[in-house]
């Protein structure tokens, strides 16, 4: 039987992080354990209450470092669900979705979803961790022949095509980075704490022109975990639960890059329509967006692809301050992945949960009834979305 639109599918009752760091240190399982224990305690539960565990695996890894044997580091009872999710940048939202489905199928009651990654290691900086040839042509070794290394290559190619398509100025991505930095200054968890001016932005070095240093995400080592329960289960936490009102996925034939080149679309709109339809909402009902913005360009593209701005209008919308503190549609209110920290899909999800619960402190957005969150991967080829709310039943 289909769930009634506007009634929550599940609740997120606890969340927690490990220490987050720009220096190498603890291993992926160690960080994951810290985050899981923090989230369970935050939910007001004991480890013995947990009957489902979903491990979000980073696709940076040469080999699997977070295996299902990780469970032995926790004092858990018999589990009714134990699985690894790996779907590039969409892993974490997919984990929440899979937890919700398992709960509603009657398999489990309290599921912990965790993501842990250590892109910064003794032998490699974060840049190297993400510096493999990106697959654009789907032809073996093709990109290597042209020195097209790093996720930044694909996003820069998309950004250049986007900039040309709408005849945008050279500072178009800078306004997005500056808006995110304004939020970061209000967020204790953010790593970039210095005000960003356009002058400083334009003085920052190009990594791959048109993308500069300040257009790129700030990777950290760390882990984030969430406890997902049935929507009608009373919460033991000492903060309000957050309800999952809708979710979706959209994996279209084209990435944002090939879509821009071929005048086609990715699966982003599909993922948005699914989530909004489930919640019985439209874009105009959304109070806050938490977007996966590993590059400034991705934030602008997401605003357009998810239908919050018309094509070609996101740059102007951001420049006018509409996504900044006090703006019409606050976006990435902890600084996002550029100025906050980059832990793939866990970054926007964590801030969406915090804002929806009303516990964001100085940066809390007053109107937070409906929070939209996105996860994207593979140069904006894979998309997952969710709508979170403090209300179990939407009015």
């Amino acid at each position, binding site marked *: 039987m289909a769930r009634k639109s506007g009634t929550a599918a599940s609740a997120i009752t606890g969340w927690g992080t490990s220490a987050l760091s720009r220096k190498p240190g603890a291993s992926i399982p160690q960080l994951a354990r810290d985050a899981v224990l923090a989230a369970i305690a935050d939910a007001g539960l004991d480890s013995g209450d947990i009957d489902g565990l979903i491990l979000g695996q980073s696709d940076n890894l040469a080999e699997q470092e977070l295996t299902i044997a990780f469970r032995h580091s926790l004092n858990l009872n018999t589990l009714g669900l134990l699985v690894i999710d790996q779907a590039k940048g969409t892993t974490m939202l997919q984990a929440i979705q899979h937890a919700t489905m398992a709960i509603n199928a009657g398999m489990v009651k309290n599921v912990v979803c965790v993501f842990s990654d250590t892109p910064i290691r003794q032998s490699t900086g974060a*840049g190297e961790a993400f*510096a493999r040839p990106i697959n*654009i*042509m*789907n*032809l*073996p070794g*093709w*990109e290597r*022949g*042209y*020195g*097209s*290394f*790093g996720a930044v*290559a694909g996003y*820069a*190619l*998309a*950004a*250049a*095509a986007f900039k*040309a398509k709408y005849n945008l100025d050279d500072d178009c991505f800078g306004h997005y980075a500056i808006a995110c930095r304004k939020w970061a200054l209000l967020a204790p968890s953010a790593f970039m704490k210095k005000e960003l001016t356009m002058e400083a932005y334009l003085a920052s*070095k*190009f*990594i*791959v*022109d*048109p*993308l500069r240093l300040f257009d790129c995400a700030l990777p950290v080592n760390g882990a984030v975990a969430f406890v997902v329960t049935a929507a009608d289960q009373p919460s033991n936490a000492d903060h309000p639960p957050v309800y999952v009102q809708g979710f979706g996925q959209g994996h279209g*034939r084209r990435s944002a*890059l*090939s879509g*821009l*080149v*071929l005048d086609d679309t990715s699966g982003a709109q599909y993922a948005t329509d699914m989530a909004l339809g489930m919640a019985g909402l439209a874009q105009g009902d959304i109070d806050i967006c938490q977007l996966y913005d590993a590059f400034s360009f991705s934030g602008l593209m997401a605003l357009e692809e998810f239908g919050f701005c018309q094509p070609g209008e996101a740059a102007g919308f951001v420049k006018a301050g509409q996504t900044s503190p006090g703006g019409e549609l606050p976006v990435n209110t902890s600084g996002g992945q550029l100025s906050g920290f980059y832990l793939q899909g866990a970054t926007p999800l964590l801030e969406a949960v915090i804002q929806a619960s009303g516990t964001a402190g100085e940066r809390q957005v007053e109107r937070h009834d409906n929070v939209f969150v996105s996860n994207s991967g593979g140069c904006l080829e894979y998309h997952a979305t969710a709508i979170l709310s403090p209300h179990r039943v939407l009015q």
Partner: protein
Amino acid sequence: MSATDIKTTKAQFADFIAKGQLWLPYEKQSGAVVQLTDLEIFTPDEIDWKRASGTGKLASFVTFHREYHPDFPPPYNVSIIRLDEGPFVLSTLVDLSGSHKIGMAVAAHFDASGRLVFAPVANT
């Protein structure tokens, strides 16, 4: 015939490139050109190959300022070309004597190392 005896459409395309030729795939049934990214959808007996005109338009252009590998000292460019037949291809723009602009006409050739590269039409 074992699976290893079957040449994939991707390998067929790579064989043309290794010979210094740019050929494009067309779906036999519909006659429609196939994006190079979509080659694995089709088996070789579903595809007709036709030699490409080699002309197209610059669809994206970026300049690497960071060294990722000693074979590629910066600055160097990576470009996307939309071929006149429809498919797009990642490559690099050479013979850049003047300015480049997304949308400009470019033409293909193979460089000394056998790579497919493109040059502005005005320079060819």
